[in-house]
């Protein structure tokens, strides 16, 4: 291991006189072994971005290069766990260090002592290479497939039954051990055989999403909104009810209390699809706003790598990040401390390319072992001042497939989820609607069109009504306004704290069918000369 000394310190960046480092190599900084990453190399010194609080760090303290980039450990034991942005297990840290995170030290993200019941898929004589499945262990509700890491060669011995990660899961020719877990650099997308276009829906249980702006498995959606518009509650509702196997939730620079709430709720609530506790299908990565800023930048990469790992086992994984803006701000803070030339609003000019490269890690793929898995993303964005023209939202819009715009005025009226039905869109809409027509009912598409039309009509009528007053409108128009109001409050609005929080596609359709058919029969009655008041009274019976 190469060792050098600290030359200078400015915020989270440290310059060192260490030669022979590689770009993005992981280093340990100072006596307290703070984790850092090489971000710039010069002939006689290197600049390191430290992932932790540099308070107390002194000039002259030692720096060691690890020889590898920042990685996460991937193996059984991730599920149900909770990590910080560098994959340190927060529950274990709480047990060892008490409620405050005071001492930073190297703690492995996986429990090496835990015993697993291993069923091998390979036998002596088989050839091993990266991505090949070695066997499985039961991790809670899931079959956790053990994927081969960098080791290559012919298998000579295979373990079976009771093992821990501390022991070899087998042996290769030449005595090389096959470990039960491996490391993967967080900034590198995990490989796969090929990628498919997203074509099947990811049912969220949120009517406005599933019905109007559906999301596909393998797709990416962003959900921007000012504060108080319900981004977090929406993401949490989706995390609870989405029709996926595994959820990876990253709280990136957000509130600690929110995370406490999320954890408490996930411990209580059942997954509506499998009837198991939500924690059993969730991996949490939490780097709250008061935790070190550079680790916040790394947190989304740490999380997405774990999500890809489960995708590689053939699972459908949903990646939720709250919020991407906090990640971008961390990027900006780091860029500023490196004295890079700023782009728009101080963000580095590589913001857009980093974002798009990140979002491309989503998708439906055929894995190296021939399975089909998917990684879908829902990313919240917190635009400053609720202004969507800001760089992060705009950069996201170029790559995402769906845009759920949260509307402050809806939130003020306590209409939740406060997703604006005129501004939001989903590029997956057409393909997925066909899918819903097949799986739920053929009239799905027709009702979707009708509902959109009624809301559209209301919008134009509202302008007229503001001038002449609602009384001045014709009965048919007032009926449209009445129905639109019903669609808004009874269909699009959904209380995240009630039994209505999850709506399967069948009941979603039944609900809109009911409203639209009431509307149609009311139109008929009006044609026959009935008064609107009477028609509505009948309707409400």
């Amino acid at each position, binding site marked *: 291991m190469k060792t050098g000394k600290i*030359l*200078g*310190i*400015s*915020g989270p960046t440290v*310059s060192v006189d260490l030669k022979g480092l590689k770009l993005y190599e992981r280093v340990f900084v100072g006596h307290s072994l703070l984790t850092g990453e090489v971000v710039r190399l010069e002939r006689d010194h290197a600049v390191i971005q430290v992932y932790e609080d*540099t*308070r*107390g*760090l*002194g*000039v*002259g303290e030692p720096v060691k290069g690890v020889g590898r980039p920042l990685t996460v450990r991937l193996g059984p034991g991730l599920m149900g766990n*909770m990590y910080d942005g560098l994959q340190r297990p*927060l*529950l274990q*840290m709480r047990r060892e260090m*008490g*409620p*405050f*995170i005071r001492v930073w030290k190297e703690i492995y993200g996986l429990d090496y002592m835990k015993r697993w019941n291993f069923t091998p898929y390979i036998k002596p004589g088989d050839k091993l290479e990266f991505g090949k499945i070695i066997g499985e262990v039961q991790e809670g509700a899931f079959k956790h497939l053990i994927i081969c890491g960098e080791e290559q060669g012919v298998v000579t011995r295979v373990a079976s039954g009771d093992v821990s990660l501390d022991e070899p899961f087998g042996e290769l020719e030449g005595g090389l051990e096959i470990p039960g877990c491996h490391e993967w650099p967080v900034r590198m997308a995990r490989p796969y055989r090929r990628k498919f276009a997203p074509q099947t829906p990811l049912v969220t249980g949120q009517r406005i999403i599933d019905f109007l702006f559906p999301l596909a498995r393998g797709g990416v959606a962003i959900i921007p909104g*000012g*504060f*108080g518009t319900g981004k977090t509650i929406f993401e949490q509702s989706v995390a609870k009810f989405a029709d996926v196997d595994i959820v990876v939730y990253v*709280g990136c*620079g957000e*509130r*600690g*209390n*929110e*995370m*406490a*709430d999320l*954890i408490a709720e996930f411990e209580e609530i059942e997954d509506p699809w499998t009837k198991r506790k939500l924690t059993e299908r969730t991996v949490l990565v*939490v780097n709250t*706003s*008061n935790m070190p*800023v550079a680790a916040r930048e790394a947190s989304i990469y740490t999380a997405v790598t774990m999500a890809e790992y489960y995708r590689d086992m053939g699972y459908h994984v949903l990646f939720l990040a709250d919020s991407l803006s*906090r990640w971008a*701000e*961390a990027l*900006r*803070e780091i860029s*500023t401390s490196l004295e890079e030339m*700023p782009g728009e*609003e*101080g963000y580095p000019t590589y913001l857009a390319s980093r974002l798009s490269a990140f979002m491309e890690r989503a998708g439906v793929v055929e894995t190296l072992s021939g399975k089909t898995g998917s990684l879908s993303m829902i990313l919240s964005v917190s635009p*400053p*001042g*609720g202004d969507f023209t800001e760089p992060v939202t705009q950069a996201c819009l170029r790559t995402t497939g769906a845009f759920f715009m949260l509307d402050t005025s809806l939130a*003020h*009226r*306590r209409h939740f989820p406060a997703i604006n039905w005129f501004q939001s869109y989903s590029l997956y809409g057409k393909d997925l609607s066909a899918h819903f027509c097949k799986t739920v009912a053929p009239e799905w598409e027709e009702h979707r069109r009708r509902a959109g039309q009624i809301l559209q009509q209301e919008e134009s009528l509202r302008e007229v009504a*503001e*001038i*002449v*007053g609602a*009384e*001045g409108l014709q009965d048919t128009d007032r009926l449209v306004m009445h129905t639109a109001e019903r669609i808004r409050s009874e269909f699009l609005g959904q209380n995240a*704290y009630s039994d209505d929080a999850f709506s399967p596609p069948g009941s979603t359709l039944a609900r809109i069918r009911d409203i639209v058919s009431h509307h149609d029969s009311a139109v008929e009655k009006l044609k026959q000369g009935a008064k609107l008041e009477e028609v509505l009274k009948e309707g409400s019976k």
Partner: protein
Amino acid sequence: MRLSQHIYKTIRTIAGPLLFLDKVQAARIGEVVRVTLPDGKNMDAEVLEIEGDTALVEVYGSTQGLDIEQTTVTFTDAIKKVPLSPDIIGRVFNGSFVPLDGSPLFIPERWMPLTGAPINPAARARPADFIETGITAIDGLNTLVRGQKLPIFSCAGLPSKEVVAFILRNARLAEAGRSFVVVFAALGLTFHEYSFYRSVLDEMRTGFVAFVNMADEPVMERLLAPRFALTVAEYLAFEQHMDVLVIITDMTNYCDALREISTAREELPGRRGYPGYMYSDLASLYERAGRIRDMDGSVTMLPVVTMPEDDITHPIPDLTGYITEGQIVLARDLHQKGVFPPVDVLPSLSRLMQQGIGEGRTRKDHRSVSNHLYKYYAKGRDLRRLEAIVGRDGMTKADGLMLDFADAFERDLAGQGMKRRTVQESLDAGLELIKRFSLEVK
């Protein structure tokens, strides 16, 4: 650990609160440095940046009188810590932790680092238990809970200090037998405001600790005072197991001080000249509120933010709103109508309300009453715009009723004056209002 103190006389540059020192050896980031003026006066400072043997040091306090030739700088090899003891209750300090009440400093039982340490998210308990403030617009519609941070967004000229005083006088925990300690941090206060708050604190029955930085005192202290206050609050909450309410007024002065210092450091300015790290910096304060699993005690925070130009999208209220769990918004038009407290409930929000209300906490019908009040009031407010165009006569009877409801809501429910209402009284008043207009509550 160094065995001796390092003393330097090598100042190269003095710029505002910043000193550049040459030929410094083995300095540490965040190390406390003592600056001794030619006249023997001492000041504390902190190491901000080190580049080779040059250290950048920031002085807490006014740098007036510093010179390059004679001023000495002592590196103490220690990090800024706060002296603590239960005896701190009842004391008043300035922004540099010097007692202002004439008594000497207590004997410290413990020292804790000024910046605190982040609470492990896995160790946090979710905020729960309702706090009764006596204000209907808060208790009934935007309930505050223990461990929450709920800022008050005010505008210049609005009675934010009267609202804070009302809460100071009336805040109570639902659970009997527990009492509050209030930690009060005043940043950049005018004497007029200070004397008002002082008289309120003096008449309070519960204990308090106050940190006061006046408008003409060093801006650097504005960055320190809230951290002193929060370190004290954490000590009282998590070591002495008390329930602590932290009131910081005014965060706008804090952010302006942050901008001033950042500019002096020649950092790249962000929106409106505020530094790009303001979000993280504010979070390092606000996130110190909370509760811990399996532990008594809590830190609840009520910071006051005066929105420049009444603009809620200004970086200060905006970033605050992104970190805090909701906001209480005071509105100018309500104040002009004579409504006190002038809380505009529509943009106000308490994100943690759900965890504080309902059966066994406040009342079973709390959520439903509050939802209906919101709905009808929002409707009435919407219709006011229509009224401005078509006039009252052009509107339906039902719409007219909603307009009257909105007026009565502001006058009778939100505008309670100086009278304290228990949460039961608040909800009853809400129900009465809905019934008066023959509206339904499901």
